[in-house]
């Protein structure tokens, strides 16, 4: 007859597999998004500097755009904070499945 220790051992292995799979995927997503933001910022800065030099943008325009980029970065960070929370909720739901699945595997 399976014991509580058997259940804990099954659960540990199942949780380890589950966590590895989910965290790897999430890490890649954040890295990709962060890189895209940095690249876009570089391109924007280059265009704005050229605009300032040619007179298409005033000093005030340039400063406003830079500050706008900072506000946008804040909104982007908030998006990632929210998506992290969603991810945690999904992982928690997944853990519930793993706990129940491990119990079923061990005892039924």
């Amino acid at each position, binding site marked *: 007859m399976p014991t509580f220790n058997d259940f804990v051992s099954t659960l540990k292995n199942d949780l380890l597999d589950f966590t590895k799979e989910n965290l790897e995927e999430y890490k890649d997503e954040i890295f990709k998004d962060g890189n895209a933001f940095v690249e876009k910022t570089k391109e924007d800065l280059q265009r704005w500097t050229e*605009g300032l030099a040619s007179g298409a*943008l005033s000093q005030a325009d340039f400063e406003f755009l830079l500050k*706008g980029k900072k506000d946008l970065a804040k*909104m982007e960070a908030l998006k990632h904070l*929210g998506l992290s929370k969603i991810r945690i*909720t999904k992982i928690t739901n997944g853990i519930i499945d793993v706990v129940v699945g491990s119990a079923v595997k061990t005892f039924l």
Partner: protein
Amino acid sequence: MITKAKLLVLISIITFSLASWSCSNISVFSPEAYKKAVDLKVESLELMSFATSPYAESEENVTYLKTELRKAYEFALGRPNNEISAEQWEVLINEEGNLLGGFLKRWEEEDTLSEMFVTEMQMLVSDAFDTIIGLESGKIDPSELK
């Protein structure tokens, strides 16, 4: 020695605790909030393109848009566990900030804005709306919650 019954109770407690915690963490997906954000993105970018002309010509439309933006913010603020989305709206429409709210204020103060500035601001505001839309569309559909 833990009996099977005790074990089942323990598993139920763990499952229930996890489920309660995960449900209260962040709001679920709202089709209404998503639609509001998409509609306002389109309307805002369209109105911004008139900022190279005198403010007075678009004043009525700006007033209307500001009201709609305020409504969207209040809607986000009123939803439970929705502080992050509400904060995004706040940054976007803040008149002292440098996105849509600040842009509309500057247009009013300066009467007309340069073409390049308007185009560049449209790109920033478009990206800003996308962060709101991206977060909303990433939220869990209520039907997926256990």
